[in-house]
């Protein structure tokens, strides 16, 4: 372990004395803090986009006395070109045929005519893959009816979403989606720096002509691999701390000074542990993959470009969040998806999170094994030349295949 300690100390000194590394640590805080205004703008654009097109809507009077109000609501929605019908039955049964059910409860008309608050109950059938629509639609109902009824300030909507076999209020769903997206975004600020730092560690050995010296030292190659992975993760954790602090400031600004911790109150301690394990598993994978791939490059710049390759699956994971959360066992094995499943575990349940974390750890183990094997062989110094020769051979073969 003395070897690991000494190497770790060396690796940390090398990383923390690089200007770009320091920049990468500080940048997430600055970026997230600066994104508060942008998020507010995005939020206002999304609210304008709330429409009810594409929904089949059923309006159900909760009592005979509310039938007239229900008809009025149907008419108001039709005037907005919504696909709406008057229906009868339990909301749960109606959601088999309709995507949105508006229940006019007993006392709604009385309250409205007396100038009291009147509450509609909205039920929405939603899928995990269309989360944005699920949170937008109930607000669309309120907006349309408030404009039509007049005195809309007294109109209230209680919205419930049926999603992934659970029912929850739209407020809770919105908080989970916001918190989940925040957690997924935060993971990017861990995965990218870790990948970049790890790639730098092999690239700089080559560029500083120290790889031969390092490989001739009386140290097990797994110690070299371990120290490089750990140092990349430690510096990555510093960048993560910076990003989380910045993120907190951003959310505090977006919620008018309220504590950002409100967003995360719906996570259990177990779910937060899952999230941090997912982040760690992803960071280990990013670090190991970048180290492995950087063996095939010859310089720091070459190694840095490897970062993009090693972290591309993370970008794919982020994109899934914008559209929704696809819960499909085939995706559990996709690198970095464990962060998405862990971030949205209040919605998706624990199974996808645990399965994808396990898959990620297994993949990391495989990559580490291959990396240590390569480092223990002469491929550590010949891999880049071999790759170059292979590429040249393929290019030459392609050129020879050209006619004339």
């Amino acid at each position, binding site marked *: 372990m003395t070897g690991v300690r000494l190497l770790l100390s060396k690796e940390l000194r090398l990383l923390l004395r690089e200007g770009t590394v320091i920049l990468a640590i500080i940048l997430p805080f600055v970026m997230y803090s600066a994104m508060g205004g942008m998020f507010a703008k995005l939020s206002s654009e999304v609210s304008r986009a709330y429409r009810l097109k594409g929904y089949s809507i059923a309006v159900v009077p909760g009592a005979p006395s509310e039938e007239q109000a229900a008809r009025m609501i149907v008419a108001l929605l039709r005037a907005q070109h919504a696909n709406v019908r008057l229906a009868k039955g339990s909301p749960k049964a109606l959601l088999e045929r309709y995507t949105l059910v508006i229940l006019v409860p007993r006392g709604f008309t009385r309250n409205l005519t007396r100038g009291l608050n009147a509450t509609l109950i909205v039920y929405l059938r939603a899928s995990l893959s269309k989360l944005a629509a699920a949170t937008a639609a109930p607000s669309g109902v309120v907006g349309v009816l408030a404009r039509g009824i007049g005195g809309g300030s007294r109109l209230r909507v209680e919205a419930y979403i049926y999603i992934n076999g659970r029912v929850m209020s739209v407020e809770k769903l919105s908080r989970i989606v916001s918190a989940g997206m925040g957690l997924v975004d935060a993971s990017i600020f861990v995965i990218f720096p870790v990948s970049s730092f790890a790639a730098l560690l092999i690239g700089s050995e080559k560029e500083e002509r120290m790889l031969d010296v390092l490989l001739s030292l009386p140290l097990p190659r797994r110690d070299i691999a371990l120290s490089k992975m750990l140092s990349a993760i430690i510096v990555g954790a510093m960048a993560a701390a910076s990003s989380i602090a910045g993120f907190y400031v951003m959310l505090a600004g977006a919620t008018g000074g309220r504590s950002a911790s409100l967003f995360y109150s719906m996570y259990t301690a177990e779910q937060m542990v899952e999230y941090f394990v997912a982040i760690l598993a992803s960071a280990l994978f990013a670090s190991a993959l970048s180290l492995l791939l950087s063996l095939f490059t010859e310089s720091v710049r070459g190694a840095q470009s490897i970062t993009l390759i090693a972290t591309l699956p993370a970008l794919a994971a982020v994109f899934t969040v914008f559209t929704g959360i696809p819960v499909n066992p085939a995706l559990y094995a996709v690198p970095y998806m464990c962060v998405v499943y862990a971030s949205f575990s209040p919605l998706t349940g624990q199974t996808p999170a645990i399965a994808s974390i396990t898959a990620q750890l297994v993949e990391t183990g495989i990559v580490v094994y291959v990396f240590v094997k390569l480092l223990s062989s002469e491929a550590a110094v*010949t891999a880049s030349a071999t790759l170059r020769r292979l590429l040249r051979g393929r290019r030459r073969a392609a050129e020879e295949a050209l006619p004339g």
Partner: protein
Amino acid sequence: MPLLVVEGLRKVYPGGVEALRGVSFEVEAGEVVALVGPNGAGKTTTFRIIATILRPTSGCVLLEGVDVVREPGEARKRLVYVPEEVGGYKQLTGREMIELLVKLHLAARGAERREIEEAVEEAVKLTGLSEKVLGKKLREYSKGMKRRVQVAAALAVAPRLAILDEPTAGLDVIAANHLRRLIRRVAAERGSAVLFSSHNMLEVEYLADRVYLIHRGEIIASGHPRDIVEEAGARNLEEAFLKLIAGREGGGV
């Protein structure tokens, strides 16, 4: 038994380039041995195989009886390797670089803390650089200064075998002279064998107890520099090598 036995070493790189074609030689304990030859002759490939960085296609390397291919970890405890290209972690100071290299070597051998500290101070002395200079980052160092740091750190750990690939290449006269004296002194005082390469035949004559001439992956001559000169009927080592290589090529060089 010799400290280092290299027997029938062949190395074919992926792609089919045959760098070594059955190289054999020996190095005794405390001996300073030069492996000389033209560029691309196979010197660095030989060194990198002994240093466990490359694997031979066939053949065998024994260092104190340890097979460097089968037991690379054990072999690395007995050797140090300073490659031809001068490097160093530019974010570290000269002293930090020395401390790192010495500690990594000696810690693996299970050395005590005091022994390590003494070796660091010894390496600092061997560099011939002032404390002020050693306190500067390596990015401010010249090639010669970096070379001094690496060679001093390598020799201060008292390896059984030090492999120095062109240790004075590109250095000025003063720095080169310092390193030559350092190599001779450490070999004499500490009993470390030194295997080095050089294109400077005067340097080889000054340093080497024995010389191996390698050409196109084969050893074509060996012996004490004086004996090689006499056998070749030449005036000096450089002329002897030119004659030997020309004879091998079947014409002038």
